[in-house]
């Protein structure tokens, strides 16, 4: 114990042991432009847009995935592009690994899935199950899963890389679109009363919300964006969804 304490003391005294920076919450897509979101809960600031003509975007805090008209761009935690991949037309749904790295992309219009493993990209043409895809996720075990909106309810369908197709569809009761997957195999979506958070082996969490968002997007490490029909955008944390913050609007 004494040895450990001495080493800690020494480490803290090393010049440069502390580094300071702006707190980066993530990146948000407004109209077709992606801009950084700085700040802390309740004090946000949107930076200058860095990417234009973006159809879809998602950020984990460690990586970002953007869909433009013809490409998927892979970004690092600072928003710098690290790779680009030719992609089918139309919007995309994105998923990240449990560590927050680029994991997968689903192109509903083309029926294609891209799997990212480091710098390697695997393209798989597949047939989507019935329903409107609303979210893509990668479970802790690495399974690709899509959430489908079918007849007003959500269904979870797992993708078999071996067979190249979606296999088992399972109804997710008491939750509606829009919805997103959360790290730890959770799902955050809507019900008639507000937000619903579901995690395996955990009690369902219900949070009242005064509006029904038109979209829920993953915008950074621990943060989700809720888009209201009024044009207002709200931010919540995965782990504290009961605290709702309005994000700055106006021209981007």
């Amino acid at each position, binding site marked *: 114990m004494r040895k450990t304490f001495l080493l800690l003391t020494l480490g803290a005294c090393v010049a440069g042991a502390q580094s300071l920076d702006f707190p980066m919450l993530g990146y948000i897509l407004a109209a077709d432009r992606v801009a950084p979101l700085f*700040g802390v809960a309740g*004090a946000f600031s949107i930076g200058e847009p860095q990417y234009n003509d973006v159809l879809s975007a998602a950020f984990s805090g460690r990586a970002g995935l953007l869909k433009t008209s013809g490409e998927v761009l892979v970004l690092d935690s600072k928003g710098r592009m690290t790779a680009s991949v030719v992609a089918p037309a139309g919007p995309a749904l994105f998923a990240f690994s449990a560590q927050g790295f680029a994991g997968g992309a689903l192109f509903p219009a083309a029926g294609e899935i891209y799997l990212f493993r480091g710098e390697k990209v695997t393209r798989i043409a597949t047939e989507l199950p019935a329903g409107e895809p609303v979210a893509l996720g990668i479970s802790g075990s690495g399974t690709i899963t899509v959430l489908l909106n079918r007849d007003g309810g959500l269904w979870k369908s797992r993708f078999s890389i071996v067979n190249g197709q979606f296999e088992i569809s399972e109804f997710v009761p008491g939750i509606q679109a829009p919805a997103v997957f959360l790290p730890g195999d959770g799902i955050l979506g809507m019900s008639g009363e507000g937000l619903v958070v579901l995690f395996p082996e955990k009690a369902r969490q219900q949070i009242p919300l005064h509006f029904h968002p038109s979209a829920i997007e993953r915008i950074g490490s621990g943060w989700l964006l809720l888009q209201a029909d009024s044009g207002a955008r709200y931010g919540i944390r995965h782990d504290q969804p009961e605290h709702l913050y309005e994000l700055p609007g106006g021209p981007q």
Partner: protein
Amino acid sequence: MTTRLLALLACLPLIGAAQLRVFVVDGEAERELAAQFDMGRADAGDSIETRFRVRNSGGSAETVRILTLGGAGFSFSNRPSIPYIIAPGFFMDFRVKFQPSGSGSYSASLTVNSITGILRASSPPVLTVTSEGVALTTSSPLDFGKVELGSTTARRIAITNNTPGTITLSTVALSGEGFELKTALTLPRALQPRTTVTLETVFTPKVAGSFEGKLLVNDRLFRLKGAAASPPVPRATISISPAVTSSGKQPKVSIELASPAAFPVTGVLTLAFQANGSHSDPTILFVRSGSKSIGFTVAQGETRATFSGGETETALQTGTTAGTITLRIVSNSDTLSIAIPATPVVVDMARGTRTSSGLDIELTGFDNTRSVSQLRFQFFDRNGRAIGSGPVSVDAGANFRSFFEASALGGLFSLRASFPVSGDASQIAGAEVELVNSAGSTRSQRIQF
């Protein structure tokens, strides 16, 4: 006299300089000026205009030394300075305006060097339309001016027969939002020479903005225009909820008029920030607009202002700097000052991670005094007992001072502190960080590694 002159000139060939030719320009088309040219007709008080072009079709430069126009009702509307040298293949343009003072046939002689042509035009007998003694024309609108909402402005319009014969007034029609003809007329009506019909017209806008109307008198169309300005926003109270706030919050702002709005009210609420120091803070803003101003409206008969999105409250972001935020309604100067007190550092997120060389602690938060001086790290073992005889203290004043001086984001910061550990780092299970600034100290929640 005019007829005889025309007949004589018509018999003569157009004699001009060999290289200069005169054309009438109609859009993109050009046609050479004949001995006579009919410019058309214009009502008394109105005008028409024709563009002419003098071309040099020769191989050497030519000089226009004579450019004259003789005849009542005709004038140059833009006459080039003479002499005017035209290079080979180039041209010179000018315009002639016909503006008759009364009905009848008109003619004028146009001369360019040795080229001469007769310009003809006519003005049919029409009723003269005036307002406040000024003749209206179809080209310039009758301006009712700018009025405050709820007010009315009136214009008296006289229709007079100034011709020697009788003219039938068959149509009088007024159209356009906010414009109204108050005089009831029985039409058609024969107007004898030197007789006048008087119309009373008013402009009563219902909303703020610019308006256009039309007045049709027989087949002549006159344009009307007017503008309406919102009256100053009536006395109002700006409220904030919760009433006492601090940095890093999003309280709601509302506006309540002292009495129901007599007319639809449009206003702008602005904010100004005076920091305790000399700092600016871009995170202090109206959230919905993303700026330091936001528009609002109050419906007629209502007292509560409505902001963007139809909501009666709008979020104000109080930022991360201590000082005073002043909200002000533009145009009536009602204000509300909100004190943002200096506080100890606020920690928004604290995270600990194990690295290959030891431990990393990451903190994000804000210091609304920008005066962090000390960091104290207390580590805990697996049993929750503090390790060592006290926290590890770090003088962070210089680092934070340097960071805030260069920062444009208020008191926001993200701190990463690294601790090399060469012993059994797994013995260290958690840590707490105390941050000291000029307003006091704050301690993070227990960080788990």
